[in-house]
């Protein structure tokens, strides 16, 4: 049991570090002196930087070599992430594409799709977004209502609305889950599509959150034309294709370590400056509880990585790390604001932004309640809740719900 690099890993780390030392001068500056402020400039600079990282083999570390990746393991991915963090430079812009959507296309896409899209995605030439969630299909992803209807000429027409879409405002393509058959039970009538975000009929609207920032988007599809080559993984197989994406999402979370910048050192730092607070047993108790759990998540990440190295795929319990992180950060926000007082809630305070951001994050990617259901059933083996929507055609289900509501 150790946390050290093997000789091979140490060599890889040295190589990554050397490249970063040489090239970090050309990385975009996002914080502090000389930081970029214009949103468009930031995106352009980060795309260019992603391109450099990809050329150097620091993006898509685990992608197969034939698609421009390095064909390495998760541990090398983590080493790469660690070195990027250490160099204090941004990582890749399109973490969603490279981490989740690219691997889905690699697993289910047609050869032409792989050739056409993967390279441009990896190099940041084309940014991607994930078009799964809908206003009435959040936790229950299989309830998507966005309809793709096949035309007589074999092309498709797409109408509907997606929501909670990160990066949609500058994405070139989206991977979209649509209903293509409403007359079969809901898990069976869906298909995955690649949608050009500049197609006619696509509208992106920023969705402001509690903080006032538009951290996500709504995306509207009004009779958007798609040709048959847009289908990924076969018509009617959308649910299975989506599960692949969600599995890679868990891997991403599992490797996130202490994650999302919510770490105990940062929280302790906010309190350490207040002499009364640092000697207050109650403040210390709260901080100690929060920090202990966040430290645990760091080591859960290492355990996940050990499992990944052995070829094991993380199960839904990896999502419990997100529960720990989000709830820990919420408690930390409360504690810090209690210590600092209303100033912590000032618009310009980092803590105000965190306090505003977290309640939405609690629901992002499925609510905590649904996750606990899934873990209870799939990990602990507890019996499922009675499902009233099993085996019922989607079209009937909707009218039934309407009647009940």
């Amino acid at each position, binding site marked *: 049991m150790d946390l050290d690099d093997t000789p091979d890993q140490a060599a890889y780390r040295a190589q990554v570090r050397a490249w970063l030392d040489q090239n970090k001068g050309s990385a975009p500056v996002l914080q502090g002196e000389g930081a970029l402020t214009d949103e468009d400039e930031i995106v352009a600079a980060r795309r260019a930087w992603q391109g450099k990282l990809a050329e150097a083999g620091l993006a898509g570390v685990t992608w197969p070599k034939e698609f421009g990746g390095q064909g390495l393991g998760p541990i090398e991915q983590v080493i790469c992430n660690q070195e990027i963090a250490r160099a204090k430079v941004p990582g890749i812009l399109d973490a969603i594409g490279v981490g989740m959507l690219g691997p889905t296309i690699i697993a289910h896409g047609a050869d032409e799709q792989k050739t056409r899209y993967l390279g441009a995605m990896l190099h940041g030439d084309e940014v991607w977004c994930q078009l799964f969630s809908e206003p009435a299909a959040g936790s229950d992803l299989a309830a998507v209502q966005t309809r793709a209807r096949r035309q007589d000429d074999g092309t498709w027409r797409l109408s509907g609305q997606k929501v909670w879409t990160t990066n949609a405002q500058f994405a070139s393509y989206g991977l979209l889950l649509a209903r293509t058959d409403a007359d079969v039970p809901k898990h069976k009538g869906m298909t995955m599509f690649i949608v050009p975000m500049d197609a006619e009929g696509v509208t992106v609207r920023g969705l402001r959150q509690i903080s006032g920032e538009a951290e996500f988007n709504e995306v509207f599809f009004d009779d958007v034309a798609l040709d048959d080559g847009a289908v990924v993984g076969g018509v009617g197989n959308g649910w299975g294709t989506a599960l692949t994406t969600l599995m890679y999402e868990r891997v991403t979370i599992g490797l996130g370590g202490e994650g999302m910048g919510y770490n105990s050192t940062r929280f302790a730092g906010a309190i350490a400056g*207040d002499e009364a607070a640092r000697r207050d047993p109650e403040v210390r108790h709260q901080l100690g509880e929060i920090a202990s759990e966040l430290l645990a998540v760091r080591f859960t990440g290492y355990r996940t990585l050990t499992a990944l190295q052995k070829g094991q795929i993380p199960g839904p319990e990896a999502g419990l790390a997100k529960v720990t992180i989000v709830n820990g950060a919420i408690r930390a926000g409360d504690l810090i604001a209690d210590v600092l*007082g*209303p100033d912590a809630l000032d618009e310009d305070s980092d803590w105000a932004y965190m306090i505003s951001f977290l*309640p939405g994050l609690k629901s992002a990617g499925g609510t905590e309640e649904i996750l606990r259901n899934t873990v209870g059933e799939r990990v602990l083996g507890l019996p499922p809740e009675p499902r009233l929507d099993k085996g019922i055609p989607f079209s009937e289900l909707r009218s039934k719900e309407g009647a009940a509501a």
Partner: protein
Amino acid sequence: MNLALSDEQVFLREAARGALSRFKTVEAAREALDSDQSALPDLWPMATEAGWPGLLIDDAHGGAGLDVFDAMLVLGECGRVLAGVPLLGHLPATAILGSASAGGDLLAPLASGEKRAAYLPAEPPGEIESGWTCDPARGLARAELPTVGADGTVSGHVAFVPDAPGADVLVGVGLEDGSPVGFAVESGAAGLEVEDVMRYDATRRLGHVTLSATPATVLDASADDLASAWYLAQALIAAESIGSVETALDVSVAYAKERHTFGRAIGSYQAVKHSLTEVLRQLDNGRSLLYYAGWARNGSPGEFPLAASAARSVSSRALDYAARAMISVHGGIGATWEHDAPLYFRRAQLSRRLLGGSSGATDRVAGELLAGASA
């Protein structure tokens, strides 16, 4: 024993609800976050028309001579719709003035609403802090009260004073040779500065108040009366919070009945149902303590510190829980700018950190009980 509202109290509450319904207060709370607080509707004329400024002023001075519980009913209605009526500052100030012989002259225009007062919150001594304190501008350590000089001028700072900006009279507690005395300062007095501050909830106008050898009227209110104003403020913000909890629960329950997932209304799931039941439990506890505080101020003044502090403690946690549940029950949509839930959340976040903080009130509950236990 009778803990029901009187007909007059039911009427007062219904009238308040009606009067407030003429304004789009929740929408204004959102818009003011984007623009600035001056965009908020001025609710003072409506309050004046309803007679709220004089609620706690006796009729000899033109007030309604009602009790704290009546004022709490009004604050509850304000809390339901996040209305920024500056009563949290005004009412405790009138209570101090009403208990001092020198306060009489000031009361008539305050009762009519022609002038508006704000209370500079001052926390009475407890088991741990042996002196009077006020809220600090930042950090956990409590701050010192202003001092009252031999020449009758007052100097010092009080941070985060509710409703201070624009108030005509500021009423507070200062230390004169170490003893607490009440004082009143009029707007425009020499050396008085009120810095307008907004934190997170645009409906709350706060002020950092600085007094530099400011001429003041010294008030002969007793230390008990000065302490009572602190607990009055605790009871009022508690009532206001419980009003907000009521709305949060109503809106959440309605959505939980209507929104479906996996083929069922989400309110049929235990996770949602139990969470909303928990909101109700905390709401019920908070309401009961409002009765306790409302009764104790006159019915058993020795218990008022305990009752008001307990009400503050429970209602603040109730609002925190209810606002988070409101966001959570609504799923992602509850965390968006256009939804009302974030406004109740902002209210919860700020309220719990004003007036000594709800954790200060919780500590005070323990202090009162521990003092009683060893007596």
